[in-house]
């Protein structure tokens, strides 16, 4: 044997590599700077005295992810049939509720997480999750939500919520979940 390389040795040229890394870095920075400013907590109520605060239940901060989840009561997630990504009537109702909340808090941005069940190949399921997240996004946009406020990410079959290997579990895992960015 010699050290002679007969097959496709393609050393990354350092300059190009550095450029690519720089590019990646600046993109990452751009991503950070584009992030919506964190919602400020509501100003504290004027302190009248040193009395104990009234025993009013705090509840989630309006406009927060906790508030969104509480208001949606499960409508933050829509579900799909095997291999499908169409938005049915039930999904439309859920996305309608999401859109209303988003209209109320126009500074909020959301990520739509697309998922698939475990009964498919990994790469295809990544693409399928992306397709589902986009279908949900498109519907929100059709209801008047600015597309720039909606980010998508696919987890394919990597993040199931139901852990069984049965139809009921798979149905719960074929989903698109809307998560607000606090």
């Amino acid at each position: 044997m010699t050290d002679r390389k007969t097959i496709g040795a393609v050393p990354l040229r350092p300059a190009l590599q550095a450029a690519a890394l720089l590019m990646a870095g600046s993109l990452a920075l751009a991503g950070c700077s584009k992030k919506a400013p964190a919602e400020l907590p509501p100003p504290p109520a004027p302190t009248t005295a040193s009395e104990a605060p009234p025993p009013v239940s705090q509840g989630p901060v309006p406009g927060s992810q906790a508030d969104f989840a509480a208001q949606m009561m499960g409508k933050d997630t829509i579900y799909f049939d095997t291999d499908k990504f169409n938005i049915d009537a039930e999904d439309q109702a859920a996305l309608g509720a999401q859109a209303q909340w988003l209209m109320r808090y126009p500074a909020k941005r959301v990520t739509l997480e697309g998922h698939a069940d475990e009964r498919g190949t990994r790469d295809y399921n990544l693409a399928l999750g992306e397709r589902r997240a986009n279908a949900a996004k498109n519907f929100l946009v059709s209801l008047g939500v600015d597309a720039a406020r909606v980010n998508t990410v696919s987890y394919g079959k990597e993040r199931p919520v139901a852990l069984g290997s049965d139809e009921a579990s798979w149905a719960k895992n074929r989903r698109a979940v809307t998560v607000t960015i606090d």
Partner: protein
Amino acid sequence: MKLIALPLLALVLAAPLAAQNAAPPAAEPGGLTGSVSDETPWQDLGIAIPTFPTDADVPTQASAGSTAALGKALAQVITADLKNNGLFKPTGPDALPQPSFGQVVAPDFGIWSGRGAEMLVHGYVRAAAGGNVTVGCYLYDVGLKQQLVKGGWEVAPGDWRRAAHKCADLVYSRLSGESPFFDSKIAYIAETGPKDHRMKRLAIMDSDGANHRYITTGQSIALTPRYSPDYKSLLYLSYFNGAPRIYAYDIEKGTQRLITANRNPTFAPRWSPDGKWVLYSMATAGNTDIYRIASSGGGAPQRLTNAPGINVGGSYSPDGSKIVFESDRSGSQQVYVMNADGTDQRRISFLGGRAATPEWSPRGDQIAFTHIAGNLRVAVMSPGGGNMRYLTDSWQDEAPTWSPNGRIIQFFRTEKNSGKTSIWQVDLTGRNERRLPTPVDASDPAWGPVRP
């Protein structure tokens, strides 16, 4: 990582014959004594692989120890290689007498024919300059009393297993007529943790599971690695920064870069056989298409598919002229072929169920894929789409990857309910199936080429 093939003739004639004049090496304390295990079914003995003797037992930096200890370890690794591919019935050094250094080039055929061995592998170990070790390897036909093939390598002590794999490759190639494959590596994903929050780390190992090494820490999900043909870098998908994108990881430098500046999700990375191109799949507004980009990092990506739907994956024909890929443009996942520039796209599989993750055999004669009809099973078909044949039958087997010689397929198996994964391999008969030993659960195997 240097492996030097030696000009054998000189070495063979000079070294062991000269040694014959010297006193035979003393039996190692704790080493082989020549006793034979009674449990061994001698009628099954196809190939005898006794300990490789050394001319002088000296310490080495090799993990296996001194040259004498190394001689036994080498024979064990060769035995395991040949046993695990299912073609042979080798008997290793633990059950065999140890030959003298001189017998390596002048075997005592009577001993071996008396044991029913049809083939005999002899070899030797010697300390070489600079802390390296020299390993010789000889295959004899016992019945014919003839040497069939020989080889020799000088390796750094840390690479001693490579010498064993090279010897196993030599024996395998000579006896089967196939190309070698043992001296190769595998990239895969190491998995730990609960099903809804699996930690997935990029890892690499030798083709027999040795020299295992984690590449990523597991903070970001890592998926679908692919070794570059020169083993210098790995393409893989990472959720670093929250979004799935393909990175090229430089193994020597320990650095990585994005393969494209586009911020859309990219996945399913693949190399062209010459390492000059990277194939990847990118989703845009829910639609996924296959692109190629120069692996050198410069140049603009070129879109190869533009049919509505999910076009994903891709695997080059061995000559690099064609790409087999998967698409659901006709309604469900099926296998398609196109020219490497994206022209002449046509469907080749017309199967019930779905056909996914096609991988072109390095021999060019078969396409391995995942067939989904209820269960997921690994199957092969001809490049024209005919002669479909299942190789596995389990609840969920997917993502085949070919051995460098196109005779063995690795894939990963997922367990129902628990979601636990493991890497398996199967030969083209479908009969010899075995699980690969990995430290933790394992998925997404990607077999690299034979090392130079």
